[in-house]
């Protein structure tokens, strides 16, 4: 456990704050493991794409949506382990610079969904990687008020935006995402038509 762990907000609290700020017509792609499962339990909307497999690919899926729907903001809720696995996508986003793309990383510095094994996010500054890759706006926050302020700010700006949110290792008691994957696809496509 990190020294500051006790005073940090949990991933679920951060997701809740973000989902409260995201308008109902904005597509949200959520990475696999606890982030999807916690988001599903907090609020389920047809504009949510709960990624169950394909670890590391949430940002790439979001990028595809953003390129197909340039007039819509697209939000990706990612994990540090996921980002490290698909690190090349930071380069693709930085190079293509989609204005409507917002990448939020819920960074607990562990592979939380598989048993809290430490990730290299402890030493690798993912926000600096995003900056070097060419994201237009990059912020790093810890406190809930800062999260709310910076995310609102990113929603109103031309992207791509990157928000690293430091969260605790705490996980909620949540079940699986109890939707048929093909149904997630159908309703998502319809909701963002």
């Amino acid at each position, binding site marked *: 456990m990190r020294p500051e762990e006790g005073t940090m907000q949990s991933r679920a609290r951060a997701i809740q704050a973000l989902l409260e700020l995201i308008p109902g017509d904005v*597509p949200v*792609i959520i990475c696999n493991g606890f982030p999807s499962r916690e988001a599903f339990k907090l609020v389920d909307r047809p504009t949510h*794409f709960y*990624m*169950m*497999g*394909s*670890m*590391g*690919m949430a940002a*790439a*899926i*979001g*990028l*595809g*949506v*953003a*390129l*197909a*729907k340039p007039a819509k903001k697209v939000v990706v809720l990612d994990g540090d382990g996921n980002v490290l696995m*698909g690190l*090349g*996508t930071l*380069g*693709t986003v930085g190079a*293509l610079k989609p204005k409507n793309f917002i990448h939020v990383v819920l960074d607990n510095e562990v592979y939380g969904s598989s048993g809290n094994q430490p990730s290299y996010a402890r030493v690798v500054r993912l926000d600096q990687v995003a900056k070097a890759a060419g994201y237009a706006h990059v912020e790093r926050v810890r406190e809930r008020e800062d999260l709310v302020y910076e995310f609102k700010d990113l929603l109103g700006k031309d992207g791509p935006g990157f928000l690293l949110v430091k969260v605790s290792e705490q996980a909620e008691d949540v079940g699986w995402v109890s939707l048929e*994957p*093909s149904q*997630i*696809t159908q309703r*998502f*496509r319809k909701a*963002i*038509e």
Partner: protein
Amino acid sequence: MIESEAFVQALEDIGFDFFTGVPDVLLAGVIETLLTRRLYTPAVREDEAVAMAAGAYLGGRVPAVLMSNAGLGTSLNTLLSLNLLYRHPCLLIVAWRGFEGHDAPEHRSMGQVMTPLLDTVRIPHRTLSDATALDDFNWVAQTFMKTRIPVALLLKPGVVRGIQP
């Protein structure tokens, strides 16, 4: 030999309007044509390309992914746990490196196991040839729309004009 222009036109006629991928020397001509037509968004890995294509499909586009068969290995988990699971169709245009063993050593294994691998993971595939090109493209159009899963069109050396290895 099929010209890259004709190849790309046939795909556009079917309705494909989002192209991504990672280059292979066999695909150089096709990618050049796609770039000239401003249709191609480069990816850095094939699994990323497959996931971008899935996102584009979620956003209403009809996607195709260009890759070497080495990239099929890279993208296997994404194909299985994203495209097949969620029913995200895309056309995989796969360069058949290591075809009949006449290629650099690194392509030997995948060249041999590619079609059994596609069969095992139940991705329908067809090998493009000059003589059957029309049928091949019809097959792509029909299978793609019907199954809502990835389908693969395999490109052997010398079938579509490009730089040969």
